[in-house]
Protein backbone atom coordinates (compact mmCIF):
# COMPACT_ATOMS: atom_id res chain seq x y z
CA UNK A 1 0.00 0.00 0.00
CA UNK A 2 1.44 3.34 -0.96
CA UNK A 3 1.36 6.15 1.54
CA UNK A 4 -1.04 8.03 -0.69
CA UNK A 5 -3.67 5.36 -0.03
CA UNK A 6 -3.54 5.90 3.73
CA UNK A 7 -6.70 7.48 5.07
CA UNK A 8 -10.32 7.60 4.01
CA UNK A 9 -11.49 7.65 0.43
CA UNK A 10 -15.16 8.01 -0.46
CA UNK A 11 -16.37 7.63 -4.04
CA UNK A 12 -19.84 8.51 -5.33
CA UNK A 13 -21.55 8.17 -1.94
CA UNK A 14 -25.35 8.24 -1.92
CA UNK A 15 -27.85 8.10 0.95
CA UNK A 16 -31.62 8.15 0.70
CA UNK A 17 -34.38 8.03 3.31
CA UNK A 18 -37.47 6.23 2.03
CA UNK A 19 -36.45 6.99 -1.53
CA UNK A 20 -35.78 10.68 -0.84
CA UNK A 21 -32.12 11.43 -1.58
CA UNK A 22 -30.13 13.13 1.18
CA UNK A 23 -26.61 12.62 -0.23
CA UNK A 24 -26.35 12.64 -4.03
CA UNK A 25 -23.11 11.00 -5.10
CA UNK A 26 -20.30 12.81 -3.30
CA UNK A 27 -16.59 11.95 -3.32
CA UNK A 28 -14.17 12.83 -0.52
CA UNK A 29 -10.47 12.30 0.09
CA UNK A 30 -9.25 12.41 3.69
CA UNK A 31 -5.52 11.63 3.62
CA UNK A 32 -3.58 10.51 6.68
CA UNK A 33 -2.09 13.43 8.60
CA UNK A 34 -4.66 15.91 7.32
CA UNK A 35 -7.83 17.44 8.68
CA UNK A 36 -10.57 17.77 6.11
CA UNK A 37 -13.64 19.90 6.71
CA UNK A 38 -17.20 19.25 5.58
CA UNK A 39 -19.44 22.28 6.03
CA UNK A 40 -22.91 23.20 4.95
CA UNK A 41 -26.26 24.35 6.31
CA UNK A 42 -28.66 22.28 8.41
CA UNK A 43 -30.09 19.41 6.40
CA UNK A 44 -27.30 19.47 3.80
CA UNK A 45 -26.53 15.79 4.43
CA UNK A 46 -23.42 16.07 6.62
CA UNK A 47 -24.54 13.67 9.36
CA UNK A 48 -25.96 11.28 6.80
CA UNK A 49 -22.55 11.19 5.14
CA UNK A 50 -20.73 10.31 8.37
CA UNK A 51 -23.32 7.81 9.58
CA UNK A 52 -23.38 6.03 6.23
CA UNK A 53 -19.58 5.77 6.19
CA UNK A 54 -19.89 4.09 9.62
CA UNK A 55 -22.43 1.63 8.22
CA UNK A 56 -25.08 2.93 10.62
CA UNK A 57 -27.41 3.74 7.70
CA UNK A 58 -27.45 2.15 4.21
CA UNK A 59 -25.43 3.81 1.43
CA UNK A 60 -24.47 3.55 -2.18
CA UNK A 61 -20.99 4.09 -3.56
CA UNK A 62 -17.58 3.00 -2.31
CA UNK A 63 -15.76 3.66 0.96
CA UNK A 64 -12.07 2.76 1.19
CA UNK A 65 -10.09 2.79 4.44
CA UNK A 66 -6.34 2.66 3.89
CA UNK A 67 -7.18 1.34 0.42
CA UNK A 68 -9.49 -1.42 1.67
CA UNK A 69 -13.17 -1.54 0.68
CA UNK A 70 -15.45 -1.67 3.75
CA UNK A 71 -18.68 -2.44 1.92
CA UNK A 72 -21.56 -3.94 3.88
CA UNK A 73 -20.01 -3.75 7.34
CA UNK A 74 -22.05 -2.74 10.43
CA UNK A 75 -20.67 0.04 12.67
CA UNK A 76 -18.98 -2.30 15.15
CA UNK A 77 -16.97 -3.85 12.31
CA UNK A 78 -16.19 -0.51 10.67
CA UNK A 79 -14.62 0.55 13.98
CA UNK A 80 -12.39 -2.52 13.76
CA UNK A 81 -11.30 -1.40 10.30
CA UNK A 82 -9.91 1.76 11.86
CA UNK A 83 -12.73 4.32 11.48
CA UNK A 84 -14.30 6.07 14.45
CA UNK A 85 -17.10 8.62 14.69
CA UNK A 86 -17.58 11.17 17.46
CA UNK A 87 -21.33 11.54 17.03
CA UNK A 88 -23.34 14.75 16.90
CA UNK A 89 -24.38 15.68 20.42
CA UNK A 90 -21.43 13.76 21.94
CA UNK A 91 -23.51 10.89 23.34
CA UNK A 92 -21.24 9.98 26.22
CA UNK A 93 -22.74 7.33 28.50
CA UNK A 94 -24.01 9.77 31.11
CA UNK A 95 -24.55 7.30 33.93
CA UNK A 96 -21.14 5.67 33.58
CA UNK A 97 -17.91 7.11 34.90
CA UNK A 98 -15.43 8.88 32.68
CA UNK A 99 -13.07 5.92 33.00
CA UNK A 100 -15.77 3.41 32.08
CA UNK A 101 -16.62 5.48 29.00
CA UNK A 102 -12.97 5.32 27.95
CA UNK A 103 -12.81 1.58 28.69
CA UNK A 104 -15.80 1.03 26.43
CA UNK A 105 -14.06 2.94 23.67
CA UNK A 106 -11.36 0.28 23.72
CA UNK A 107 -13.84 -2.52 22.95
CA UNK A 108 -13.41 -1.75 19.24
CA UNK A 109 -9.59 -1.93 19.30
CA UNK A 110 -7.90 -4.14 16.75
CA UNK A 111 -4.90 -4.59 19.00
CA UNK A 112 -5.98 -5.26 22.58
CA UNK A 113 -2.43 -5.15 23.95
CA UNK A 114 -2.11 -1.43 23.23
CA UNK A 115 -4.84 -0.51 25.73
CA UNK A 116 -2.63 0.92 28.50
CA UNK A 117 -0.66 3.04 26.06
CA UNK A 118 -3.83 4.34 24.38
CA UNK A 119 -5.27 5.32 27.75
CA UNK A 120 -2.07 7.10 28.69
CA UNK A 121 -2.10 9.05 25.41
CA UNK A 122 -5.75 10.05 25.76
CA UNK A 123 -5.27 11.23 29.34
CA UNK A 124 -2.20 13.19 28.27
CA UNK A 125 -4.21 14.85 25.51
CA UNK A 126 -7.15 15.59 27.82
CA UNK A 127 -5.78 15.97 31.38
CA UNK A 128 -9.22 16.92 32.68
CA UNK A 129 -10.40 13.36 32.00
CA UNK A 130 -7.69 12.08 34.29
CA UNK A 131 -8.75 14.47 37.04
CA UNK A 132 -12.43 13.49 36.70
CA UNK A 133 -11.88 9.82 35.87
CA UNK A 134 -14.21 8.57 38.61
CA UNK A 135 -16.92 11.15 37.94
CA UNK A 136 -20.19 10.33 36.16
CA UNK A 137 -19.88 11.48 32.56
CA UNK A 138 -23.25 13.20 32.74
CA UNK A 139 -21.90 15.58 35.36
CA UNK A 140 -19.18 16.97 33.09
CA UNK A 141 -19.58 20.29 31.26
CA UNK A 142 -20.35 20.26 27.54
CA UNK A 143 -16.75 20.91 26.62
CA UNK A 144 -15.50 18.19 28.93
CA UNK A 145 -18.06 15.76 27.51
CA UNK A 146 -16.82 16.57 24.00
CA UNK A 147 -13.27 15.81 25.13
CA UNK A 148 -14.50 12.55 26.61
CA UNK A 149 -16.34 11.64 23.40
CA UNK A 150 -13.18 12.27 21.37
CA UNK A 151 -11.05 10.41 23.92
CA UNK A 152 -13.47 7.47 23.81
CA UNK A 153 -13.14 7.32 20.02
CA UNK A 154 -9.34 7.52 20.24
CA UNK A 155 -9.30 4.52 22.60
CA UNK A 156 -10.16 2.39 19.56
CA UNK A 157 -6.93 3.67 17.96
CA UNK A 158 -8.58 4.72 14.68
CA UNK A 159 -6.68 5.64 11.52
CA UNK A 160 -9.64 7.80 10.52
CA UNK A 161 -11.38 10.01 13.07
CA UNK A 162 -14.67 11.64 12.05
CA UNK A 163 -16.40 14.29 14.17
CA UNK A 164 -19.96 15.54 13.72
CA UNK A 165 -20.25 19.19 14.79
CA UNK A 166 -17.83 18.96 17.73
CA UNK A 167 -18.24 22.68 18.51
CA UNK A 168 -22.04 22.52 18.82
CA UNK A 169 -23.21 24.19 22.02
CA UNK A 170 -19.72 24.78 23.40
CA UNK A 171 -18.22 27.98 24.79
CA UNK A 172 -15.46 29.63 22.72
CA UNK A 173 -12.74 28.39 25.08
CA UNK A 174 -14.12 24.87 24.95
CA UNK A 175 -14.15 25.02 21.14
CA UNK A 176 -10.51 26.13 21.17
CA UNK A 177 -9.60 23.20 23.40
CA UNK A 178 -11.32 20.75 21.04
CA UNK A 179 -9.60 22.10 17.94
CA UNK A 180 -6.22 22.22 19.67
CA UNK A 181 -6.68 18.52 20.35
CA UNK A 182 -7.70 17.90 16.73
CA UNK A 183 -4.50 19.61 15.64
CA UNK A 184 -2.48 17.22 17.79
CA UNK A 185 -4.43 14.25 16.44
CA UNK A 186 -3.78 15.36 12.88
CA UNK A 187 -0.09 15.67 13.79
CA UNK A 188 -0.13 12.04 14.91
CA UNK A 189 -0.78 11.07 11.31
CA UNK A 190 -4.47 10.29 11.62
CA UNK A 191 -6.95 11.23 8.92
CA UNK A 192 -9.47 13.66 10.45
CA UNK A 193 -12.84 14.47 8.89
CA UNK A 194 -14.64 17.22 10.76
CA UNK A 195 -18.21 18.30 10.06
CA UNK A 196 -19.05 21.84 11.13
CA UNK A 197 -21.54 24.62 10.54
CA UNK A 198 -19.06 27.38 11.43
CA UNK A 199 -17.56 27.96 7.99
CA UNK A 200 -14.82 30.52 8.51
CA UNK A 201 -13.23 28.79 11.46
CA UNK A 202 -13.33 25.36 9.85
CA UNK A 203 -11.91 26.51 6.53
CA UNK A 204 -8.99 28.14 8.31
CA UNK A 205 -8.26 25.09 10.45
CA UNK A 206 -8.59 22.36 7.86
CA UNK A 207 -6.16 21.44 5.11
CA UNK A 208 -9.11 21.35 2.75
CA UNK A 209 -12.83 21.93 3.22
CA UNK A 210 -15.73 20.64 1.18
CA UNK A 211 -18.94 22.62 1.05
CA UNK A 212 -22.06 20.47 1.00
CA UNK A 213 -25.39 21.79 -0.24
CA UNK A 214 -28.50 19.70 -0.58
CA UNK A 215 -26.48 16.49 -0.73
CA UNK A 216 -23.95 17.71 -3.27
CA UNK A 217 -20.44 19.12 -2.95
CA UNK A 218 -20.55 22.59 -4.47
CA UNK A 219 -17.11 23.89 -3.51
CA UNK A 220 -13.71 22.74 -2.31
CA UNK A 221 -11.84 25.37 -0.28
CA UNK A 222 -8.29 25.95 0.92
CA UNK A 223 -7.32 27.55 4.24
CA UNK A 224 -6.56 30.89 2.57
CA UNK A 225 -10.19 31.07 1.37
CA UNK A 226 -11.21 31.72 4.97
CA UNK A 227 -10.59 35.43 4.41
CA UNK A 228 -12.25 35.59 1.01
CA UNK A 229 -15.66 37.20 1.47
CA UNK A 230 -17.02 36.14 -1.92
CA UNK A 231 -16.12 32.54 -1.37
CA UNK A 232 -17.60 32.57 2.13
CA UNK A 233 -20.87 34.04 0.91
CA UNK A 234 -21.05 31.34 -1.71
CA UNK A 235 -20.28 28.69 0.90
CA UNK A 236 -23.11 29.87 3.15
CA UNK A 237 -25.76 30.58 0.57
CA UNK A 238 -24.86 28.25 -2.27
Amino acid at each position, binding site marked *: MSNADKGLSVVDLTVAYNGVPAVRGISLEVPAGQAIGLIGPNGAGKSSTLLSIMGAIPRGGTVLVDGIDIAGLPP*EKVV*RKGVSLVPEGRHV*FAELTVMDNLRLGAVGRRDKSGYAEALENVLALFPILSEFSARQAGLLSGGQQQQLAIGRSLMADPDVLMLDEPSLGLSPTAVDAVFEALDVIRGLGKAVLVVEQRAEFTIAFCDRTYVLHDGEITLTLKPEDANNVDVLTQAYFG
Partner: protein
Amino acid sequence: MSQLLQSLVDALSAGATLGLAALAIGLVFGVIRLANFATGEIITAGAYTLIFTWQLGWYISIPFAIIVAVLLSLLMELSVFSRMRAATPATLLIASFGLSFLLQRVYELAFTNNVQTAPVASELAQSISIGGVRIQMLSVATILLAALLLTGLQLFLTRTSLGLQLKAAAADFKTARLIGIPASRVIGLSFALSGILAAAVAFVTTVQTGAVGPTFGVPITILALVGAVIGGIDKISGALAGGFLVGFATSMLASWLPQDMSNFKDAYVFMLVIGVLLMRPQGLLIRGRGAVRT
Protein backbone atom coordinates in the same frame (compact mmCIF):
# COMPACT_ATOMS: atom_id res chain seq x y z
CA MET B 1 -47.92 -6.63 65.28
CA SER B 2 -46.85 -10.14 64.39
CA GLN B 3 -49.42 -10.22 61.64
CA LEU B 4 -48.02 -6.99 60.26
CA LEU B 5 -44.48 -8.39 60.24
CA GLN B 6 -45.67 -11.56 58.60
CA SER B 7 -47.50 -9.74 55.84
CA LEU B 8 -44.52 -7.44 55.41
CA VAL B 9 -42.17 -10.37 54.82
CA ASP B 10 -44.66 -11.92 52.40
CA ALA B 11 -45.02 -8.63 50.55
CA LEU B 12 -41.25 -8.20 50.33
CA SER B 13 -41.03 -11.68 48.88
CA ALA B 14 -43.83 -11.04 46.36
CA GLY B 15 -42.12 -7.77 45.44
CA ALA B 16 -38.79 -9.54 45.00
CA THR B 17 -40.36 -12.13 42.70
CA LEU B 18 -42.07 -9.57 40.50
CA GLY B 19 -39.01 -7.35 40.60
CA LEU B 20 -36.94 -10.19 39.13
CA ALA B 21 -39.59 -10.91 36.50
CA ALA B 22 -39.79 -7.23 35.54
CA LEU B 23 -36.02 -7.09 35.36
CA ALA B 24 -36.04 -10.08 33.01
CA ILE B 25 -38.27 -8.02 30.71
CA GLY B 26 -36.47 -4.70 31.26
CA LEU B 27 -32.99 -6.04 30.45
CA VAL B 28 -34.07 -7.06 26.97
CA PHE B 29 -36.23 -3.99 26.44
CA GLY B 30 -33.33 -1.70 27.29
CA VAL B 31 -31.31 -3.09 24.41
CA ILE B 32 -33.76 -3.86 21.58
CA ARG B 33 -37.03 -2.14 22.65
CA LEU B 34 -38.80 -5.48 22.94
CA ALA B 35 -41.22 -5.91 25.83
CA ASN B 36 -41.18 -9.68 25.62
CA PHE B 37 -44.54 -11.03 26.76
CA ALA B 38 -43.28 -14.54 26.04
CA THR B 39 -40.98 -14.15 29.06
CA GLY B 40 -43.92 -15.88 30.76
CA GLU B 41 -43.37 -18.99 28.64
CA ILE B 42 -39.69 -19.00 29.60
CA ILE B 43 -40.83 -19.04 33.23
CA THR B 44 -43.24 -21.86 32.40
CA ALA B 45 -40.49 -23.84 30.66
CA GLY B 46 -38.27 -23.49 33.72
CA ALA B 47 -41.16 -24.51 35.96
CA TYR B 48 -41.98 -27.65 33.92
CA THR B 49 -38.31 -28.59 33.99
CA LEU B 50 -38.25 -28.33 37.78
CA ILE B 51 -41.43 -30.40 38.10
CA PHE B 52 -40.25 -33.15 35.75
CA THR B 53 -36.67 -33.41 37.01
CA TRP B 54 -37.01 -32.67 40.72
CA GLN B 55 -36.78 -36.35 41.71
CA LEU B 56 -33.25 -36.42 40.23
CA GLY B 57 -32.10 -34.07 42.98
CA TRP B 58 -32.09 -30.30 43.27
CA TYR B 59 -28.46 -30.09 42.14
CA ILE B 60 -29.51 -31.53 38.78
CA SER B 61 -32.97 -30.04 38.51
CA ILE B 62 -32.11 -26.41 39.22
CA PRO B 63 -29.14 -26.13 36.80
CA PHE B 64 -31.24 -27.96 34.21
CA ALA B 65 -34.08 -25.46 34.63
CA ILE B 66 -31.65 -22.57 34.21
CA ILE B 67 -30.20 -24.11 31.05
CA VAL B 68 -33.66 -24.71 29.56
CA ALA B 69 -34.75 -21.15 30.33
CA VAL B 70 -31.59 -19.60 28.89
CA LEU B 71 -31.74 -21.74 25.75
CA LEU B 72 -35.42 -20.97 25.15
CA SER B 73 -34.73 -17.26 25.63
CA LEU B 74 -31.86 -17.36 23.12
CA LEU B 75 -33.94 -19.44 20.73
CA MET B 76 -36.71 -16.82 20.76
CA GLU B 77 -34.16 -14.17 19.86
CA LEU B 78 -32.54 -16.22 17.09
CA SER B 79 -35.69 -17.58 15.51
CA VAL B 80 -38.09 -14.65 15.88
CA PHE B 81 -36.87 -11.33 17.22
CA SER B 82 -33.53 -11.17 15.39
CA ARG B 83 -35.54 -11.15 12.17
CA MET B 84 -37.53 -8.11 13.31
CA ARG B 85 -34.82 -5.57 14.14
CA ALA B 86 -36.45 -2.78 12.15
CA ALA B 87 -39.84 -3.27 13.82
CA THR B 88 -41.36 -0.72 16.19
CA PRO B 89 -41.70 -1.55 19.91
CA ALA B 90 -45.46 -1.99 19.40
CA THR B 91 -44.94 -4.52 16.61
CA LEU B 92 -42.37 -6.38 18.67
CA LEU B 93 -44.74 -6.54 21.64
CA ILE B 94 -47.50 -7.98 19.46
CA ALA B 95 -45.10 -10.53 17.95
CA SER B 96 -44.19 -11.58 21.48
CA PHE B 97 -47.92 -12.06 22.28
CA GLY B 98 -48.13 -14.35 19.28
CA LEU B 99 -45.09 -16.29 20.40
CA SER B 100 -46.52 -16.53 23.90
CA PHE B 101 -49.82 -18.05 22.71
CA LEU B 102 -47.99 -20.38 20.35
CA LEU B 103 -45.80 -21.74 23.15
CA GLN B 104 -48.80 -22.16 25.44
CA ARG B 105 -50.39 -24.40 22.79
CA VAL B 106 -47.13 -26.32 22.44
CA TYR B 107 -47.06 -26.91 26.22
CA GLU B 108 -50.70 -28.00 26.09
CA LEU B 109 -49.97 -30.54 23.34
CA ALA B 110 -46.88 -31.83 25.12
CA PHE B 111 -48.08 -31.89 28.73
CA THR B 112 -51.91 -31.58 28.44
CA ASN B 113 -54.03 -28.87 29.97
CA ASN B 114 -53.83 -30.49 33.40
CA VAL B 115 -51.33 -29.19 35.89
CA GLN B 116 -48.23 -31.29 36.48
CA THR B 117 -47.25 -31.60 40.11
CA ALA B 118 -44.17 -32.40 42.15
CA PRO B 119 -43.05 -31.40 45.63
CA VAL B 120 -40.35 -28.98 44.48
CA ALA B 121 -38.23 -27.89 47.46
CA SER B 122 -41.11 -28.73 49.78
CA GLU B 123 -38.87 -28.04 52.78
CA LEU B 124 -39.28 -24.36 51.93
CA ALA B 125 -43.06 -24.61 52.03
CA GLN B 126 -42.98 -24.74 55.84
CA SER B 127 -43.14 -21.79 58.11
CA ILE B 128 -40.94 -21.09 61.08
CA SER B 129 -41.75 -19.19 64.23
CA ILE B 130 -39.40 -16.44 65.30
CA GLY B 131 -40.40 -14.86 68.61
CA GLY B 132 -44.05 -15.65 68.00
CA VAL B 133 -44.00 -14.36 64.44
CA ARG B 134 -44.77 -17.06 61.88
CA ILE B 135 -42.73 -16.57 58.77
CA GLN B 136 -42.83 -18.57 55.54
CA MET B 137 -39.46 -20.13 54.81
CA LEU B 138 -40.15 -19.60 51.11
CA SER B 139 -40.61 -15.87 51.61
CA VAL B 140 -37.24 -15.60 53.33
CA ALA B 141 -35.60 -17.77 50.67
CA THR B 142 -37.13 -15.67 47.89
CA ILE B 143 -35.84 -12.44 49.39
CA LEU B 144 -32.37 -13.94 49.84
CA LEU B 145 -32.32 -15.34 46.31
CA ALA B 146 -33.34 -11.98 44.85
CA ALA B 147 -30.70 -10.18 46.91
CA LEU B 148 -28.07 -12.64 45.72
CA LEU B 149 -29.06 -12.34 42.06
CA LEU B 150 -29.23 -8.56 42.16
CA THR B 151 -25.84 -8.29 43.82
CA GLY B 152 -24.36 -10.62 41.24
CA LEU B 153 -25.99 -8.73 38.39
CA GLN B 154 -24.82 -5.39 39.78
CA LEU B 155 -21.24 -6.66 40.10
CA PHE B 156 -21.41 -8.04 36.58
CA LEU B 157 -22.74 -4.79 35.12
CA THR B 158 -20.25 -2.54 36.87
CA ARG B 159 -17.10 -4.64 37.22
CA THR B 160 -16.79 -6.59 33.98
CA SER B 161 -16.19 -5.35 30.45
CA LEU B 162 -19.06 -7.42 29.11
CA GLY B 163 -21.37 -6.02 31.78
CA LEU B 164 -20.34 -2.46 30.97
CA GLN B 165 -20.99 -3.12 27.30
CA LEU B 166 -24.49 -4.30 28.15
CA LYS B 167 -25.10 -1.25 30.34
CA ALA B 168 -23.91 1.05 27.59
CA ALA B 169 -26.09 -0.71 25.02
CA ALA B 170 -29.10 -0.49 27.31
CA ALA B 171 -28.50 3.24 27.77
CA ASP B 172 -27.85 4.08 24.09
CA PHE B 173 -27.75 1.21 21.64
CA LYS B 174 -26.86 3.26 18.56
CA THR B 175 -23.89 4.93 20.18
CA ALA B 176 -22.76 1.63 21.69
CA ARG B 177 -22.52 0.15 18.20
CA LEU B 178 -20.83 3.27 16.83
CA ILE B 179 -18.00 2.90 19.33
CA GLY B 180 -17.55 -0.76 18.46
CA ILE B 181 -19.73 -2.78 20.82
CA PRO B 182 -21.08 -5.72 18.77
CA ALA B 183 -24.87 -5.74 18.61
CA SER B 184 -25.19 -9.52 18.56
CA ARG B 185 -23.01 -9.85 21.66
CA VAL B 186 -25.03 -7.52 23.89
CA ILE B 187 -28.39 -8.69 22.56
CA GLY B 188 -27.51 -12.32 23.17
CA LEU B 189 -26.25 -11.44 26.62
CA SER B 190 -29.48 -9.64 27.52
CA PHE B 191 -31.58 -12.63 26.46
CA ALA B 192 -29.34 -15.03 28.39
CA LEU B 193 -29.54 -12.95 31.58
CA SER B 194 -33.28 -12.62 31.08
CA GLY B 195 -33.44 -16.43 30.92
CA ILE B 196 -31.52 -16.79 34.19
CA LEU B 197 -33.86 -14.36 35.95
CA ALA B 198 -36.90 -16.16 34.51
CA ALA B 199 -35.53 -19.43 35.87
CA ALA B 200 -35.24 -17.88 39.33
CA VAL B 201 -38.83 -16.67 39.11
CA ALA B 202 -39.85 -20.15 37.94
CA PHE B 203 -38.18 -21.68 40.97
CA VAL B 204 -39.86 -19.56 43.65
CA THR B 205 -43.28 -19.71 42.01
CA THR B 206 -43.06 -23.48 41.48
CA VAL B 207 -42.10 -24.06 45.11
CA GLN B 208 -45.11 -21.98 46.09
CA THR B 209 -47.66 -23.82 43.97
CA GLY B 210 -46.07 -27.22 43.31
CA ALA B 211 -48.22 -27.36 40.18
CA VAL B 212 -47.53 -26.14 36.65
CA GLY B 213 -49.85 -25.83 33.65
CA PRO B 214 -49.47 -24.35 30.14
CA THR B 215 -50.33 -20.80 31.23
CA PHE B 216 -48.32 -20.90 34.46
CA GLY B 217 -46.14 -17.91 33.63
CA VAL B 218 -48.85 -15.64 32.26
CA PRO B 219 -50.25 -13.90 35.37
CA ILE B 220 -46.85 -13.03 36.78
CA THR B 221 -45.72 -11.72 33.39
CA ILE B 222 -48.72 -9.42 33.11
CA LEU B 223 -48.01 -7.96 36.53
CA ALA B 224 -44.27 -7.76 35.81
CA LEU B 225 -44.92 -5.93 32.55
CA VAL B 226 -47.20 -3.52 34.39
CA GLY B 227 -44.53 -3.00 37.01
CA ALA B 228 -41.83 -2.47 34.41
CA VAL B 229 -43.97 0.11 32.65
CA ILE B 230 -44.64 1.99 35.88
CA GLY B 231 -41.01 2.04 36.83
CA GLY B 232 -39.83 3.07 33.39
CA ILE B 233 -39.09 -0.07 31.46
CA ASP B 234 -36.09 1.31 29.57
CA LYS B 235 -34.12 1.74 32.75
CA ILE B 236 -32.89 -1.43 34.37
CA SER B 237 -33.39 -0.02 37.86
CA GLY B 238 -36.78 1.39 36.89
CA ALA B 239 -38.14 -1.96 35.76
CA LEU B 240 -36.87 -3.62 38.94
CA ALA B 241 -38.38 -0.97 41.22
CA GLY B 242 -41.71 -0.97 39.38
CA GLY B 243 -41.97 -4.75 39.50
CA PHE B 244 -41.16 -4.74 43.18
CA LEU B 245 -43.77 -2.07 43.87
CA VAL B 246 -46.56 -3.95 42.08
CA GLY B 247 -45.68 -7.23 43.83
CA PHE B 248 -45.45 -5.54 47.21
CA ALA B 249 -48.72 -3.64 46.79
CA THR B 250 -50.63 -6.67 45.51
CA SER B 251 -49.48 -8.77 48.43
CA MET B 252 -50.23 -6.09 51.01
CA LEU B 253 -53.71 -5.56 49.60
CA ALA B 254 -54.34 -9.31 49.68
CA SER B 255 -53.41 -9.40 53.38
CA TRP B 256 -55.20 -6.30 54.55
CA LEU B 257 -58.28 -5.81 52.43
CA PRO B 258 -61.44 -7.25 54.00
CA GLN B 259 -62.27 -10.70 52.64
CA ASP B 260 -65.05 -9.57 50.33
CA MET B 261 -62.88 -6.84 48.82
CA SER B 262 -59.63 -8.72 48.42
CA ASN B 263 -61.01 -10.40 45.32
CA PHE B 264 -60.65 -7.01 43.71
CA LYS B 265 -57.02 -6.54 44.72
CA ASP B 266 -55.85 -6.53 41.11
CA ALA B 267 -58.35 -3.80 40.34
CA TYR B 268 -56.83 -1.64 43.08
CA VAL B 269 -53.35 -2.32 41.72
CA PHE B 270 -54.39 -1.31 38.24
CA MET B 271 -56.01 1.84 39.62
CA LEU B 272 -52.65 2.60 41.16
CA VAL B 273 -51.02 1.96 37.79
CA ILE B 274 -53.38 4.36 36.02
CA GLY B 275 -52.66 6.97 38.67
CA VAL B 276 -48.91 6.58 38.27
CA LEU B 277 -49.06 6.78 34.51
CA LEU B 278 -51.25 9.88 34.60
CA MET B 279 -48.72 11.61 36.79
CA ARG B 280 -45.61 10.16 35.23
CA PRO B 281 -46.26 9.26 31.61
CA GLN B 282 -42.53 8.84 30.90
CA GLY B 283 -42.95 5.52 32.65
CA LEU B 284 -44.70 4.46 29.46
CA LEU B 285 -43.24 1.82 27.17
CA ILE B 286 -42.12 3.97 24.31
CA ARG B 287 -39.64 6.74 24.84
CA GLY B 288 -38.43 9.37 22.41
CA ARG B 289 -36.04 7.31 20.40
CA GLY B 290 -37.30 4.91 17.77
CA ALA B 291 -36.73 1.23 17.46
CA VAL B 292 -33.29 -0.19 16.95
CA ARG B 293 -32.19 -0.34 13.34
CA THR B 294 -29.43 -2.58 12.11
